[in-house]
């Protein structure tokens, strides 16, 4: 069964590009438009990877990561933060909250898949 990836981003175009690239790469993809929305997907589905934006309305990436980490079955879920920041404190915050890694915008499909392969097969 192909791995199921959840994308959380408030930008529709980013969601679409990610979903498109990931589907082409053979993953099954779900999309959510913010943290709150994303959290709903963890109910009743098996998510193998979470790819989340940092700045989002309603519930930002940081809160989402913390929430997901507290879910019973997702203690070890690979989580990538999608951001343009590569300043250490932002990434550090995300890491402290439990993120596995990060993906810097702008990215191309190659870089996306490459990054993904660090955390998921």
């Amino acid at each position, binding site marked *: 069964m192909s791995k199921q990836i959840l994308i959380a981003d408030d930008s529709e175009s980013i969601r679409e590009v990610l979903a498109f690239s990931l589907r082409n790469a053979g993953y099954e993809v779900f999309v*959510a438009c913010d943290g709150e929305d994303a959290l709903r997907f963890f109910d009743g589905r098996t998510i193998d990877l979470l790819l989340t934006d940092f700045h989002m309305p309603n519930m930002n990436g940081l809160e989402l990561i913390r929430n997901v980490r507290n879910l019973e079955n997702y203690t070890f879920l690979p989580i990538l933060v999608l951001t343009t920041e590569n*300043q250490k*404190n932002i990434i550090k*915050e995300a*890491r402290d909250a439990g993120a596995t890694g990060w993906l810097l915008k702008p*990215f191309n499909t190659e870089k996306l898949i490459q990054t993904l392969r660090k955390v998921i097969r």
Partner: protein
Amino acid sequence: MILFQERFKEEVREYFERLESGLLLLEHEPENFQVIDEIFRIMHSMKGSGGMFGFDLLSDVTHDLESLFDIFRSKKMQVNSEVISFTLSSIDGLQHLLTQEPTEEHYLLAKKLKEEAVMLIKKLNPSPAEINSDENTNERVVGNRPLDANQITYFIAFKPNENIFENGTNPLYLIDELNALGECNTQMSFDQLPDLMQLDPGKCYTTWEIFIATTEDIETLQDVFIFVNDKATIEIEKVSTGNVIHVEAILADFLNTRINSETWTPLEPELAEDIFQEDEKTVVLTETKQSGETPKTAAFSNTTVDSIRVDSQKIDQYMNLVSELITAQSRLDMLSLKLHNSDLELITESIEKISRQLRDNAFDMSLIPLQSIAVRFKRLIHDLSKTLDKQVELATDGLDTELDKSIIEKLIEPLLHIIRNSLDHGIENKEERAAKSKNEVGTISIKASTVGSYVQIEISDDGRGLDAAKIRTKAIAKGIITEHDKLSEYEIFNLIFEPGFSTSELVTDVSGRGVGLDVVRRKVQEMRGSVEIESELNLFTKFILKLPLSLSIIDGLLTRVGDNYYVIPSSAVKKIFMVNQQMLKKDFRQVVELEGNQIPYMNMHEEFETELDLPENQYAVTVSYGNQSFGLVVDEVVREYQAVIKSLGKLLNSQDIFSGASILGNGQLALVIDTNKIIQKYS
């Protein structure tokens, strides 16, 4: 990718709207941090996504705007109106930069916007070191990637912390990644493994030692571990130039040196390697960010994936198909009536029901709330009140009222025109208002509501009102009326809708560019709507627009004249009377007396029917025309009819008394009358 770019553009346009409404809100609530945060976030998104989709200039400029709003976000300064105006005008500039093939002009614009933003930032934030100070301007240290295929052998010690799994990392994937980069000799060590009883399956006790022969540079190797830098000890050392993976002696030698904590000198060192300076691959830009939690709720405009975006053309197409379906269904109706087959009748009934639901559904889909264009009004008022130095507030009510998308689109221009007029001519300047003991702040209010099958929009201002005497004089001077014309106040007010009429004595920059209110009236009438005006001198002016809910389906009265059918829109119909030829006086005034009122009329039979004789008894349908009545005399009123309007096509474009045609169940055509036009033409 092109598809995504288009999506992105759409998204950016949405961002612009949200930015505008946010900025306008900030004007009143400069301390609304949720809004500031949202603006910051939008700028940030545009910056990030802009680069991805090839809109580099957009990305470039939003970068500075983001920095600008970071100042307010971190509460170093308060937003002031200069910033708001600047940002609004930058947004206008950004709209031009939404191009992938920038010309010289675009570059200049971007440069200008950036410079202005930087100036503003400097002005607000005298210590420029705070902004982007840590932006790494050093060129990235590029590793000495050997151009030839010569490999280098490295040693990597990878010791994950026990808690590495907690971040969702699987160290094996990293080892896999190394394997993909070159030939590896991997040794696992379980030295740290505790007794089974103490073993926590959630912890990592394994460490790795890897020799790798690769053509990749050391940075790429470091890159493999980029996510675990802080969760593991990683040491990478060069062992030798060339692939020595299979040379046991060298490997053993190397390990011995390590155990004895001696410094290993790489074999055949060719290049000075000072590439350990950075442990992260890309240094794009860095900023001082106040990282605190962002508020949970956005102050305005929630995004949701409960809705999908559909090309408006597809909706039009859908509407079109539904209207075809309704036409086909009414033919089926006719047939079923004729055949008296109960089975067929059952099916007909259910198809009728479904197509009715489908029609309502399609209709519903193409409706959008007026709110969607409200930001344009706000923006106009914001900009204009600055230009004219008048203080004006906008009060709105009922903007959730929904109208057909195509009507909303056509409505923007007339509404903006009316608001512009109210601001320019209606609302007085501060001194004048003070002299009249009015509130210095003028008010423009927009009220919308659904009334029956049409939507009523009222735009009023508490300005100087219309001066009937002045308008009359002007109209006489312009030759629109003569001195002998006796007009009611209402009629005089309506003169301002006449072509060539403009009340302002000065041609200002704002309104009065030769485009008058006549355009407003024309546009509204094109949509089968009407516009009226009410006013009281020195108190108020109110424009009342009435618009149909939809352009494609209307409720109408199906009437017959001779052998032909005509549809009169129900929204215009007042009453229906039975009349005979004696009542239809044909003297020079051509009026019919109904309920004690003399009403001008047009006998459609006489105008449109050439072969059949005039019947003795006819029907007069009175329709409203402005605040008057007008009679349309037809042979028969058949029934109420929901008309699906089709355009008449190119060849019949030159006529203007019919707004379209509808196909009846029996396949016959019914022309839809544009009552305003027909009255203008025949009265």
